[in-house]
């Protein structure tokens, strides 16, 4: 059944199926209902990492050293754990800057350098050639083997070269045509190839299924499960040592470690991985599922590697059969035709997936970052005149695809035969690992400069070439082997496989160590030794601080120049086609609330940046920069200006946060301050009033004293009567003065809290009686009738005895002053109720206007006598009395109406009550 024709037809049918899936997905994408916009497709597309190397090569490697195939998958698992930090940043940066390829990313980061983009492209193409040739080898070999069914014959021992040659070449050409059909039907501004992604996801499923099918078959079909298989393997002489494969030799572990590191970098920097993980990503959130789905896929596809390897060794004991082919030859040996065909398709799937994606990614880089910049510079004028460049771009890409595949075939012919698949693949890994320092440094370290990147890349690539590619060519006979044995021109220290005498390592590890030293060393050294341009600073900040910059306007800030809208429109149309340009401008206008083309758009920094970004999607950032610059007359910002803008921007963000906080605090503080100020002013006024009043009250009696004293001194001839009168006045005034001073001091002490209060239980009845008795003389003089209503006994109050006397004296003397002049009557009442003692002093004077009921208690209030118009007393007495009463927890108030006397009352809590 397994005729050549059948196999070929099946292969084409499968490829046709892939194409159909891609076509369907592209159609849906154009209609705006993308099929692939979900995390599962995204995760499966990442599995393009597993190529024919995984499918065939792992088993081959496992058969020889047990676990040496595993680091290639464990490394990526570890790296993917870091994707949360690293890949999210790369995704964000790439979305913002419309990055379309790995070369674009690197070039963009280091000041949109076209030179750097070109270098990266060259390294990528040369580095991936071995890998592509690996796939070609796998397909052609598997075909050759299968076609020999039911014989199992290794390709090397089959018919002459011509047929095999043909197989690989044919495969290369067919794949080229297929890839062109897949990836270059039109230009997408964001370099999305949704159809391709759908097809890749599908083929990831197919290869997983095929591998597991044959794995299950061998483990459970040929043997009786894992236990049985491994037990038998342990008994096998060749396999016994592989039960504990790590041997204990230092070289073994070093190899393990470096392979892990290598694969960690490969999963990031293989052009196809960058393409599906970053460029084709439609939603950052898909990353969440991919972070564990993809490692799970890798785990699954490796579960049966060991059974297949050991089973193969046991099945083909005499080493006739290449371990790389076990996956296919085992079912063949067991006459499982259908399974064998399925395996072949699985391997084909794995290989074509890799080739398609890798070649499309590489051709994009070649077109955007290698060819276009050169063309734009060379015949600059003529290119500007061409109205539509889309045809040119597509043509370049198609050419690149064909070229790359042919070069892959060439490598296969020159150097691919002698090596196991895995070894070939690792050479490519080591090549793309050279991108790690410049990319990782680029997104985390602003100090990386363009020159540093160029130096690092060239140094690393040179060492890679010398330690890996040269030996491959030498081993295949294209270079003298003396080179390997004795070094160039006999210089032993420069032996490609043992540079500077570093021995004992396998080739890959050795190459990795030296290339990384050269790469990182030059990158750091050159970056740190020279300063960078304004463009670089801007890009560095955009990349490293991507999570801080908001939106795409970040780039627009750094532009200064003049442009015209029609020019920009034409530019876009030339490269993307008039339809796409129209749509882009309309989108831009609508986002700002205008209508295109009716309303006039401002040709400002934002528009220019927008156009540049759109353009970058088609021709890469560096070329876009050049084209836009030619259209818009740009004024270069100096490095300092750029730094200023950046500093300002970051400071503004910080400040605005602080400002919000501060303004809240400020509001609160201001209100407090205003209130405090008011209070202070009030107090100040009161103080001024007090001082001024006291001063007045003091000076007035002093004036009389002085005047009369002087009169008496001056004039000895004053009459006796007059003299007596005057001296009397002096005395009285002196008394008045003394009284006032005492009261002021008293008040000052009470108010400042320095008064000496002597607390004791005071009997108010006693106080009142004593005071009345003391004033008896005065009452008689003024003919005032006094009546006192005092209970038999009253509870004591906690108070100061002297002060209470002072209060009673004050109230009574006021009553005396103001009671009726002719028939004065004063009534004093003492009562007790509800835990407090109350005293009332009533007079039958004029009464007090209700307006003044509070005012009489204030400082210096002097109720005036209508007769003389002269106030009585100092005005402090009542005030002090009230202060005293309130000090002991009591209250003082007045009840009065004009014309019916006044009653001054106060209460005090009894001792023991609060």
């Amino acid at each position, binding site marked *: 059944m397994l005729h050549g024709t059948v196999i070929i037809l099946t292969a084409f049918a499968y490829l046709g199926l892939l194409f159909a899936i891609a076509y369907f997905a592209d159609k849906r994408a154009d209609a705006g209902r993308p099929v692939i916009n979900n995390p599962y497709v995204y995760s499966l597309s990442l599995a393009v990492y597993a190529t024919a190397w995984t499918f065939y090569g792992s088993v081959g490697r496992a058969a020889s050293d047990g676990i040496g195939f595993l680091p290639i998958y464990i490394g990526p698992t570890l790296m993917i754990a870091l994707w949360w930090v690293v890949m999210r940043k790369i995704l964000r940066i790439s979305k913002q800057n419309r990055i379309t390829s790995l070369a674009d990313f690197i070039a963009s980061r280091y000041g949109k350098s076209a030179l750097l983009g070109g270098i990266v492209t060259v390294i990528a193409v040369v580095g991936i050639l071995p890998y592509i040739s690996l796939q070609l080898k796998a397909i052609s070999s598997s075909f050759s083997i299968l076609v020999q069914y039911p014989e199992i014959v290794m390709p090397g021992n089959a018919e002459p070269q011509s047929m095999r040659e043909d197989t690989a070449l044919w495969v290369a050409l067919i794949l080229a045509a297929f890839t062109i059909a897949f990836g270059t039907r039109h230009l997408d501004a964001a370099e999305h190839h949704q159809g391709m992604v759908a097809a890749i996801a599908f083929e990831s499923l197919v290869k997983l299924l095929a591998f597991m099918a044959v794995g299950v078959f061998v483990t459970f079909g040929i043997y009786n499960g894992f236990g049985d298989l491994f037990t038998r393997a342990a008994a096998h002489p060749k396999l016994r040592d592989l039960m504990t494969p790590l041997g204990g030799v230092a070289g073994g572990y070093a190899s393990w470690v470096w392979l892990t590191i290598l694969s960690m970098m490969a999963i990031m920097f293989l052009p196809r991985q960058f393409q599906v993980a970053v460029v084709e990503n439609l939603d950052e959130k898909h990353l969440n599922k991919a972070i564990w789905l993809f490692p799970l896929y890798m785990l699954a596809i490796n579960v049966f590697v060991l059974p297949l390897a050991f089973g193969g060794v046991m099945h083909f004991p005499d080493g006739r059969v290449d371990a790389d082919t076990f996956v296919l030859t085992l079912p063949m040996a067991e006459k499982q035709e259908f399974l064998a065909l399925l395996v072949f398709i699985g391997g084909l799937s794995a290989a074509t997936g890799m080739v398609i994606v890798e070649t499309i990614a590489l051709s994009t880089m070649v077109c955007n970052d290698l060819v276009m910049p050169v063309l734009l510079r060379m015949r600059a004028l003529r290119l500007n005149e061409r109205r539509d460049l889309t045809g040119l771009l597509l043509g370049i890409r198609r050419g690149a695809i064909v070229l790359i595949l042919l070069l892959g075939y060439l490598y296969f012919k020159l150097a691919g035969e002698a090596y196991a698949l895995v070894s070939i693949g690792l050479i490519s890994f080591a090549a793309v690992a050279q991108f790690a320092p410049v990319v990782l440094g680029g997104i985390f370290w602003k100090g990386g400069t363009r020159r540093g990147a160029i130096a690092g890349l060239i140094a690393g690539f040179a060492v890679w070439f010398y330690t890996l590619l040269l030996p491959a060519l030498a081993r295949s006979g294209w270079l003298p082997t003396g080179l390997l044995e004795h070094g160039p021109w006999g210089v032993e220290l420069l032996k490609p496989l043992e540079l500077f005498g570093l021995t004992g390592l396998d080739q890959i590890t050795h190459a990795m160590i030296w290339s990384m030293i050269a790469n990182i060393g030059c990158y750091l050294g050159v970056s740190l030794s020279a300063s960078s341009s304004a463009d670089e600073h801007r890009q560095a900040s955009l990349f490293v601080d991507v999570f801080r910059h908001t939106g795409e306007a970040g780039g627009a800030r750094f532009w200064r120049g003049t442009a015209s809208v029609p020019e920009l429109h034409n530019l876009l149309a030339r490269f993307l086609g008039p339809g796409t340009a129209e749509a882009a401008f309309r989108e831009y206008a609508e986002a700002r609330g205008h209508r295109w083309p009716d309303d006039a758009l401002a040709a400002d920094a934002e528009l220019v940046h927008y156009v540049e970004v759109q353009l970058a999607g088609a021709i890469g950032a560096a070329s876009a920069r050049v084209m836009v610059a030619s259209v818009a007359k740009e004024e270069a910002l100096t490095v300092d200006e750029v730094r200023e803008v950046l500093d300002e921007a970051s400071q503004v963000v910080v400040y605005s946060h602080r400002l919000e906080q501060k303004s809240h605090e400020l509001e609160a503080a201001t209100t407090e301050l205003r209130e405090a100020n008011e209070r202070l002013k009030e107090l100040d006024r009161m103080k001024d009033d007090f001082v001024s009043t006291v*001063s*007045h009250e*003091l*000076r007035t009696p002093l*004036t009389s004293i*002085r005047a*009369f004293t002087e009169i008496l001194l001056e004039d000895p001839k004053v009459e006796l009567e007059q003299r007596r009168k005057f001296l009397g006045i002096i005395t009285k005034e002196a008394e008045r003065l003394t009284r006032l001073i005492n009261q002021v001091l008293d008040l000052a002490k009470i108010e400042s809290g320095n008064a000496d209060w002597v607390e004791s239980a005071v009997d108010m009845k006693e106080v009142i009686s004593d005071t009345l008795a003391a004033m008896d003389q005065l009452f008689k003089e003024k003919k005032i009738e006094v009546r006192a209503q005092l209970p038999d006994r009253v509870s004591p109050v906690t108070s100061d005895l002297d002060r209470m006397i002072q209060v009673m004296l004050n109230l009574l003397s006021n009553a005396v002053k103001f009671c009726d002049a002719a028939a004065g009557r004063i009534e004093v009442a003492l009562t007790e109720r509800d835990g407090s003692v109350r005293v009332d002093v009533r007079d039958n004077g004029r009464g007090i206007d209700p307006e003044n009921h509070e005012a009489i208690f204030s400082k210096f209030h002097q109720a005036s006598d209508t007769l003389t*118009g002269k106030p009585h007393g100092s005005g402090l007495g009542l005030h002090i009395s009230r202060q005293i009463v309130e000090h002991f927890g009591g209250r003082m108030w007045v009840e009065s109406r004009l014309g019916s006397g006044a009653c001054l009352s106060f209460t005090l809590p009894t001792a023991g009550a609060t």
Partner: protein
Amino acid sequence: MPLVHAADCGGNVSKRILVADDEPNIVVALEFLLRRAGYEVQVARNGEEALQIVERGPPDLVLLDVMMPVRSGYEVCKRIRERPDCGHVKIIMLTAKGRDLEVNKGLAMGADLYVTKPFSTRDLVDKIKSLLVA
């Protein structure tokens, strides 16, 4: 400076001084002082009284206390200055308050002098004499 009695000079019309103050003792002192110096003295106990007396016939000099009930010394001073028949009247303001702003206010109102209490009797009489010479 020796006191000059108007009587000594023989034939001079004695000047009339109005004393306006609400403190009775000060009024007594001033009255005695001025009479002894040979001036005719009129007394007012508050601002209203003072103005009434001025209306009846302006004195030659007014001793005006600032802190008076009913009308303050400032008001009285202003009123006197407003009267066309009082152009020659000299005004001395007396007060127990001595702050600058009081002084300036008084002078702004049109007082000729501002004296703070307690004053020197001799000083006051001298001032009055010099004002009334002119």
